[in-house]
């Protein structure tokens, strides 16, 4: 649902386009533009929501599971003891919607443990949780 922001943005863009084209060309063309944009936005919304739903994470006793992807399904298992540090970032758009991205870093560059679109509170809780677990189980390199 957070990811639906992309769809919303597309809609806003469409309205803007329609207004511009109405002033420039006429009402008929504007209606067509609005309709086209609506269809595209709905399709995009479908994709985005599927992508959104594919994201998931599970905190287990010893490791964190992260699942994502529709076309290419990926699953990462990161033991808490291997975490070097945890990042929480929130960009401009993310801040607007009150969400943040949590990123886990291990010594392996390939470890791809990113959790976008968490509510800020949940992100903070997860960061605290991961940090304390990571400290308790620190395993070195």
């Amino acid at each position: 649902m957070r990811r639906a922001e992309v769809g919303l943005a597309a809609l806003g863009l469409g309205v803007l386009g329609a207004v511009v084209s109405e002033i420039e060309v006429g009402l008929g063309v504007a209606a067509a533009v609005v309709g086209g944009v609506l269809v595209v936005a709905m399709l995009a919304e479908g994709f985005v929501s599927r992508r959104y739903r594919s994201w998931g994470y599970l905190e287990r006793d010893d490791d964190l599971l992260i699942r994502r992807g529709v076309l290419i399904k990926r699953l990462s298992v990161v033991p808490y003891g291997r975490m070097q540090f945890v990042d929480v970032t929130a960009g401009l758009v993310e801040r607007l919607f009150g969400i943040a991205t949590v990123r886990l870093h291990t010594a392996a560059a390939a470890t791809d443990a990113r959790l976008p679109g968490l509510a800020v509170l949940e992100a903070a809780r997860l960061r605290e949780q991961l940090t304390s677990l990571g400290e308790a189980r620190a395993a070195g390199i």
Partner: protein
Amino acid sequence: MGRPALPEFELSGREQGEAAARLPRTWQRFHPLSPVVRMGPSLSGLVLVLAAAAALPGQTGISTSDLVVLGVIALTGVVSWAVTRWRVDGDTLRVESGLIRRQSLQVPLSRAQAVDLVEPLLARVLGLAEVRVRTGGASRGDARLCYLRRSDAVQVRAALLAVAHGLHEAVPAPPEERLVVVPNRRLIAAGCLTGVIPVSLGALVALGVLGWTEPAVLVAGGSGMFVTFVTMSLAAWRRISMEWSFTVAEAPDGLRIRSGLLGRAAETVPRGRIQAVRMVEPLWFRPLGWCRLELHLAGGVKGGNRHQSGSLRRALLPVGSLTDAELLLGRVLPDRRAELTRPPRRAMLRAPLSYHFLRAGVGDYCAVAVSGRIRRETVWVPLAKAQSLRAAQGPIQRSLGLASVHLDAAGQRTRATFLDRAAPEAVQLLDRLPGRCAAARNSAKRPVPTTGTTAGNVKSTTAGKAQEDLLAAGDQPPPGA
């Protein structure tokens, strides 16, 4: 075994048996010739450039300002030598340097991971050597004693090692067992095989074909080929000179790798730093029964993300026979038994070329993966070193019922990949591997007595920790054994 007699250098344990090394308790300067070695190359380069500029037509000769610049640089070198001093205080090595910005480096020797001897070309000519105390972590934390007289350096190294292991400083360095010496002839042959010859042959053929149809191509192509040939020869030369008289020996604190034609270095690799071992067998090595072994080591990555400790690659065997490789592998990975299995036959549709060698398996101690068609690569990742586990399934794999599982170790591309395994097997791997990795980690924490170890499994942390305090908590956990 028909190996050519090699000039011995730095065979610790015998060479410094007679005089017990004394570590300085009071402040000491390095050898007076140190600034020459340090500033020599850059200074002579500058002199060359200036001389060339002066020799140009229209120039009156060397101007006074040039001389002043040279003098200032030389003076800086001398001053920086004059204000640099070192001593050993208990089990702490202190190095102070800098005239205006005074720097003081303190290395608790118990945390030293390795004590190495480095001899650049100029230092060798002058009979000097550098003792480098490695502390793991970033190279900034390394204490460099440059330069000492060579015989002193050997003794200082032995004494530092002894102190690092909590022994009296007069205890001689533990003897080491020489494992493999790479014959230089083979090194040259391999250097030519990997770089210059295949490419130039290919280029010749291409040029011949093209030149047949279009003679004008010959001139352009010929000059281009010449440039390529020169650069590739230079690269091959650099590699050969770096790996010249490559010797691997085993000491209690790790593997000692020595090499170098002009500048020489003796480097110690503690076993705990090894993240993965890779064996590469290019197409033209295989008929000769040769291979190349590489180690992925934990350590700071130059440039990259400063927060992350990564790994660096280091040749363990630039080129060697399979028996040599087997011997070294046995020392590096004592238990690398694993039942290698092929992916199901339908994986051939996904990886038609590489299916030929595709194999992977997990043992009690490490995971093994074989891949590649032209360059066969075998990767061993000890389960205790696994950082994370990933699985991925693309659309083609899904329709074939396959999935890939990656076991990542520290570093940029250090991983064992179980490519195109049957989906149920991948699920099983994902299910079982985290537990087995955790078990391996826990058992690795207990010091395992290895053959000939007296003070082995040197636990260590980043000595330059104070510098790294900016980093987040838990960022630089002590690299365990």
